[in-house]
């Protein structure tokens, strides 16, 4: 954790990063632990990378439905990987804002 101890990262009042460009994979690991995910597996990274790519391309984070349809990680797996509320957890760990989509 010492690798990120010196970084200054900005968060909003709800704990979401305000600038996705400040994000690094090391930050993701720290945020994941805060969300109760001890270790990020390959499947976690598949989701995180997909979400960040989509956000870069469209300027908006993808909906959970889009993730489950196109990332190769289906709904059941998503909920197993990011238990108790995957929408917010995925966005937060990926360094994006709070998701606004309804689906």
């Amino acid at each position, binding site marked *: 954790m010492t690798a990120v101890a010196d970084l200054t990262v900005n968060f909003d009042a709800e704990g979401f990063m305000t600038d996705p460009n400040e994000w690094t994979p090391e930050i993701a690991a720290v945020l994941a632990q*805060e969300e*109760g995910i001890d270790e990020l597996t390959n499947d976690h990274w598949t989701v995180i990378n997909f979400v960040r790519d989509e956000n870069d391309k469209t300027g908006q984070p993808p*909906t*959970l*439905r*889009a993730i*489950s349809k196109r990332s190769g990680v*289906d*709904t*059941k797996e998503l*909920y197993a990987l990011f*238990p*108790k*509320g*995957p*929408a*917010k957890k995925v966005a937060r760990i990926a360094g994006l804002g709070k*998701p606004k989509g*309804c*689906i």
Partner: protein
Amino acid sequence: MSEEPTRKLSIICSKGSLDMAYPALVLANAGRMMGIDVNLFFTFWGMDVINKKKVSHLKVVPVGNPAMHMPQAVGGFPGMTDLATGMMKKEIEKLDMPPVDEFLEMIHDAGAGIYACRMAADMMGMEREDMIDEVDEILGAMEFLEMSEGAQMLFI
């Protein structure tokens, strides 16, 4: 982080039209996405939504719906129900929302409980095999209320 008690939401789905099926499904899905425990209880006309043969054929009925902004008699013309239904399905697809059968599968995969009302099933002569696979159990009203202890409840 200290463990807070998990928020719970129970939704009673009593309507069988397309426009009344979606609000419950959207809310159930939103709840699961943010970590809320969600249970759905289908009863009366809501049984159509979990009826294998009917789930893909739910309709929007213009008659008696002032939000359609057309004279009641026009809404009753032959074909108007199919027209309204087709239009709504198109709009739903544009929003990247799944059709009802796929939506039920999705929220079930997301961990929402899907229950059928025993009395309504008896009344309509429905057996378990007439219902979609996602139905977890056929329950009495008391059992559903027991399950919903401490939950926020919605009747649609």
